[in-house]
């Protein structure tokens, strides 16, 4: 079965897909083309499921509804780290929202800028130029990151806004989380935003970002899970964001990643077998997968959310008839 979308969640789907194949025999073919493409291909029904790190937008839901009811199923929580490659600066540089926004706006150009020095007394900051790395493809990671920036920088909100693709004022564009990670790794003095799994994999130094409660929190499994606690006002269709969580231990740039399927895949154009396989895999991800995903630094869904997600997955039908999941 085929899936496409978020590079943010690619390690997750690849890992769980491998496990699922070992268990079940069905191979999952996931192409990490970015959330933007994931949503678009899901709407166009060219894949079995799409993956996006931001929930479907209103107009995307409307477009999807031409083929049937879209299900927006959260599968895991991940963190968007602010990673940097600056010889001389170790892990845990303290940055707050406005500072990150200013860096990405091009207003802060050097690593030893006063704004950084103020938050990091005692850290010797070099006079290196900051090279900004961002995404060039439609990205849910961008969506989450810019959502965070919009909350803290009125100028960012006015000039750039938040979306899966934005017009970046400065910086180099790379494709996928992998591309940003590669660019950061190859460029001295660079800063980029990548999902936690990529930062850990490449042993990046990541910033401790100031959250809503005023604490500088580093990205970790724990702080990511924290972002998922006590989610207020969950809409029934589960289109939510957990960015900038008020929890004191929460990492502020963490949110859920979603799997997008049509509730009635057969009506949308897929076969019964494809629908069953898709549901089977989703059940695995929402079941056993929730434990194994921690190995790669993805936080499992908090229990309330998990049961809602499982309910959504179970509600999938084929031309009206319930699917007996082949897992």
């Amino acid at each position, binding site marked *: 079965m*085929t899936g*496409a979308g978020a590079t943010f969640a*690619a*390690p997750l789907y*690849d*890992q769980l*897909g*491998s496990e699922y*194949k070992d268990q079940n025999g069905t*191979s999952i*073919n*996931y*192409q990490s*083309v970015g959330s933007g493409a994931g949503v678009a291909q899901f709407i*166009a*029904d*060219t*894949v079995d499921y799409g993956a996006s790190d931001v929930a479907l937008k209103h107009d995307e839901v409307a477009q999807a509804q031409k083929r049937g009811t879209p299900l927006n199923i959260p599968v895991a929580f991940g963190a968007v780290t602010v990673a940097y490659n600056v010889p001389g600066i170790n892990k845990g540089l303290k940055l707050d929202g406005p500072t990150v926004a200013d860096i990405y706006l091009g207003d802060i150009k050097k690593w030893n800028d006063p704004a950084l020095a103020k938050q990091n007394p005692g850290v010797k900051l070099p006079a290196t130029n900051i090279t900004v790395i961002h995404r060039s493809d439609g990205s849910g990671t961008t969506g989450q990151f810019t959502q965070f920036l919009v909350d803290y920088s009125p100028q960012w909100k006015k000039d750039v806004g938040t979306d899966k693709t934005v017009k970046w004022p400065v910086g180099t564009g*790379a*494709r*996928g989380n*992998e*591309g940003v*990670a*590669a660019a*950061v*790794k190859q460029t001295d003095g660079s800063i980029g935003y990548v999902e936690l*799994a*990529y930062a850990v*994999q*490449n042993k990046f130094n990541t910033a401790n970002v100031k959250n809503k409660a005023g604490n500088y929190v580093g990205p970790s499994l724990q702080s990511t899970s924290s972002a998922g606690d006590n989610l207020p006002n969950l809409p029934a269709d589960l289109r939510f964001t957990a960015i900038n969580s008020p929890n004191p231990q929460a990492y502020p740039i963490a949110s859920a990643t979603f799997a997008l399927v049509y509730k009635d895949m057969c009506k949308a*154009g897929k076969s019964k077998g494809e629908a069953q396989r898709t549901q089977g895999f989703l059940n695995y991800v929402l079941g056993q997968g929730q434990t194994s995903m921690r*190995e*790669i630094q993805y936080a499992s869904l908090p229990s309330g959310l998990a049961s809602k997600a499982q309910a959504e997955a179970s509600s999938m039908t084929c031309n009206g008839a319930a699917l007996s999941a082949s897992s």
Partner: protein
Amino acid sequence: MSALGPISTRRRLTDKTARTVVLIGAAIALIPLVLVLFYVLKRGLGAFLNVDFFTQDPSGRFLGNPGGIRSAILGTIEIVGLATIIAIPIGIGLALYLVEFGKNSLFARVVRYFVDVLSGVPSIVFGLFIYITLVVSGAISGFAGWKGSIALSLLMLPIVTRASEVVLNLVPNELREAALALGSPRWRVVARVVLPSALPGLVTGSLLAIARAAGETAPLLFTVLGAKALTLNLGDQMNSLPLQIFNDVREAQDRLVDRAWASALTLILMILILNVAARFVSRRNRFA
């Protein structure tokens, strides 16, 4: 042209300087190829020693064994193979029409012009076209290996047609006329005289078109999309060497980048074999 006097020192100096500059220019032209091949060999050869590289598919596992490129190699062979089966007969047929029947008629000139124009289309636009006509259309929506093949065959068509037309034109008219004078029907002339004589040239042109198609990534991006697991079914999303390289090149993990280099070496070797075969065949061409 007025006669130039005995060679002054200044002229000799200019001559020497100019010739050195040209030599340097030629040397510069060689450097990129040497450097590219050097690095591809240096960073890619290591993986060849591991037979897993060719017998395993990319595993996709974020941690642990990244796997090999078996699905990519076989995918390339299949996708390019299908494109070849489509493009070569059509291309040669088109060239035959232009040379044997159309000649310089208005219609033939229009066809020639359109084919020429097609040869200038950037390869990504072929992928775009197939995407909007075949991938998102209702009945057969989805990515598939054969859709990539069609995009590639669009790319190959002008190359094959043009090369074949040149070669077919080189067959001396006397041969055709002699056969016709002996009472042979037209179709026999084509089948038994023209095509056999032109065969080496046709093969050369075809091999070069195949080599070109094998290296293309852009037309496959959103027609085939890609895969990791091996599938021999052209109706599925498949893997392909250029796609595999393109995916691995933007990775941060060193072992994935190493895999990109090794895949690049594999792809270059495949293309080189086709190129060498083309040269070998063309040497047996009687009329070149």
